[in-house]
């Protein structure tokens, strides 16, 4: 005698189906991001003749590094990359040194005009740089800062401070005031409590906000073009040139411009989750 045991496979199937759909969604979102970059990469490493073919092959069939080599050897690419990195990292540091204390104050203290202050922060972004360009250039010329990475750093810091302050303030909000008090009780000075307890806990979120700062600075062209002359950042150096160049160079330049910020985002990726985790509840 055999009893048939019926197992309800419904939930399992549903679970499997859901997982498959989730995977599918994840894969298609990844493709949405990755395919354009892949296509640019393929085009950047194709021969110039190959680019004129139609339809274009989706794999590097006409592989050639000549365009890339010519582009990379053109004047100012290496120097521009160095300048961009200097400016990006310095912007990150300066805007953190100025912005984090402001964010901490917004998170921990209530003071008169706090809301107005938060709103006023965003006004720096409301004024387009085009309007400011000539006065800015003149001011920097007059102070002798013109044509230095420091000038661009200062401008980029001003541009990124609002986001830095607002993001760090929500990150500090996520760090419980209790742990800070506990640190004080066990003998920390206020500064010590901040440095030893609050900062390490808030660091992941701050690191994530640095992605914004770095990428903003890396991608900013207009201000960098106005404030520099012979010490330009990479986008300022190549962007106008690329717009007038043959298609092949646009692909090569596009790839070179996108890779460093991708690397930076990849490095900071794991902290990103933490930022959204503490701010959106």
């Amino acid at each position: 005698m055999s009893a048939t045991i019926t197992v309800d496979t419904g939930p399992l199937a549903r679970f499997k189906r859901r997982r498959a759909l989730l995977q599918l969604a994840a894969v298609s979102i990844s493709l949405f991001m990755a395919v354009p970059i892949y296509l640019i990469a393929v085009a950047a490493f194709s021969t110039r003749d190959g680019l004129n073919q139609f339809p274009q092959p989706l794999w590097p069939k006409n592989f050639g590094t000549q365009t890339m080599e010519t582009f990379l050897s053109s004047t100012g690419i290496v120097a521009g990359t160095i300048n961009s990195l200097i400016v990006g990292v310095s912007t990150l540091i300066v805007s953190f040194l100025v912005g984090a204390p402001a964010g901490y104050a917004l998170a921990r203290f209530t003071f008169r005009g706090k809301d107005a202050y938060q709103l006023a922060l965003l006004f720096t972004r409301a004024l387009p740089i085009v309007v400011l360009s000539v006065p800015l250039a003149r001011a920097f010329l007059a102070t002798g800062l013109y044509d230095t990475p420091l000038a661009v750093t200062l401008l980029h810091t001003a541009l990124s401070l609002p986001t830095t302050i607002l993001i760090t303030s929500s990150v500090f909000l996520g760090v419980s005031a209790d742990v800070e008090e506990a640190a004080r009780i066990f003998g920390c000075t206020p500064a010590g409590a901040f440095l030893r307890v609050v900062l390490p806990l808030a660091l992941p979120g701050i690191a994530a906000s640095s992605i914004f700062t770095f990428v903003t600075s890396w991608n900013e062209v207009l201000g960098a073009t106005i404030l520099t002359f012979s010490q330009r950042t990479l986008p300022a150096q190549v962007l106008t040139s690329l717009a007038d160049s043959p298609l092949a160079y646009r692909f090569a330049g596009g790839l070179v411009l996108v890779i460093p910020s991708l690397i930076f985002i990849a490095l900071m990726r794991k902290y990103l989750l933490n930022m959204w985790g503490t701010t959106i509840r």
Partner: protein
Amino acid sequence: MSTPHPIPRLSRRSLLAATGGLASAGILSACSGAKTSGGGGATSSSSTVLLSTQFSPVEEKQRFEKILSTFVTDPKTSFNSMAMADFTTQVKSQVDAKKVQFGIAAALHGELTPLADYLEDVDSLVPDAAAAGIGKDLLALGKLGGSTQKYIPWMQASFVVAVNKKALQWLPSGADVTALTYDQYLSWAQAAAKANGKPVFGFPAGPKGLYHRWFQGYLLPSFTGGVITTFTSSEAATAWSWMKDFWAVCNPASTNYDNLQEPMARGEVLVGWDHVARLVQAPKDKPDDWLMVPAPIGPKGLGYMLVVAGMGIPKGGDVATAAKAIRALLQPKVQIEVLRQNAFFPVVKADLPSDLSAPVKMEAEAVAKQTASPKAIVALPPVGLGAKDGELAQVFKDCFREICLQNGDPKTVLGKYTATVTSILDATKVPCWAPDPAMSQCRVG
């Protein structure tokens, strides 16, 4: 699925340390950056910087930097190329702040006109320029409408028509491809589109295309003998109707073409008019497949436009050093090298060498034929309009859009834009420039 990524404590500490390290490194290094101008030396007393709007494409820039480092050694001259808007901002702000960081501002005639007040008088260089063989008319352009010399001509160019030999099979019988009339050009385009199944003629009407120069220097002078004075004439209406018919058999992707050499190299366009420095790239790989011919001839003649680039010295700059570099750039061998490498023609008297590359040779012959034609009507870019130059160009672009793209009636559209042209002229009060007859203040009609 939803396990949060554990972030080890140690890595936070090390990240903090790394940030600290980077902080000191970054702040220290922010004091001095890396130099991105190329060509000659740095900014010491015996060197100068040539700031230009020309030669911005990657390869052209490299070739010009090489010319500078080979031929212009005293003073050493480095090259810095910028888009027009940035160029204007840089010149203005540096001159205003009295801290000029470059020696020579080199740009197209129309780009230097709005900067006249920011340029030093260079009358002292005129004898040298005249001795080098720069024509009187060309030199006079450098006065920018004033009484003193503001720039010294640097190089010149024009626009011609490039033809892929494949398209010759549809050429109307009896037509000479080197002396086409506008009617023949149109019927050729129509026959080619019909036989080929899709248009093979192109027109650089992209956002950065130079098509306004087609109206200002080619179509209107050829049909009407003028540009501004004849703006509303019945000949002008005929010219625009011609344009409408021609547009109907142009590759419709033309509104995306900033230049024609790439669609030509891809085979999308077989025949087209564009700037020589751009067209010269099209026959590079297969010069035997291509011809370059003068622009078509209209009822009034063969209108063509002269493009002139000049070199000025910014106010407050190092005049002596810059003047030396300008003289060096006017040497025939340097000018020939610019033609050889970057397809801009000498302004000085220079014998063209016989060993030019095939595309450059083709181009030089077409330009020579165009200039030497007994029917030639030379047109200049607007003289003395200053910042309004762009507004006038926009009028022609707008007319093109309304007449050809939106199928407007030429007479009505021209009438509508007369007021705009008049207000530009009233604001500037300039005398007419070629091909319009000289009169004290230029007026429509």
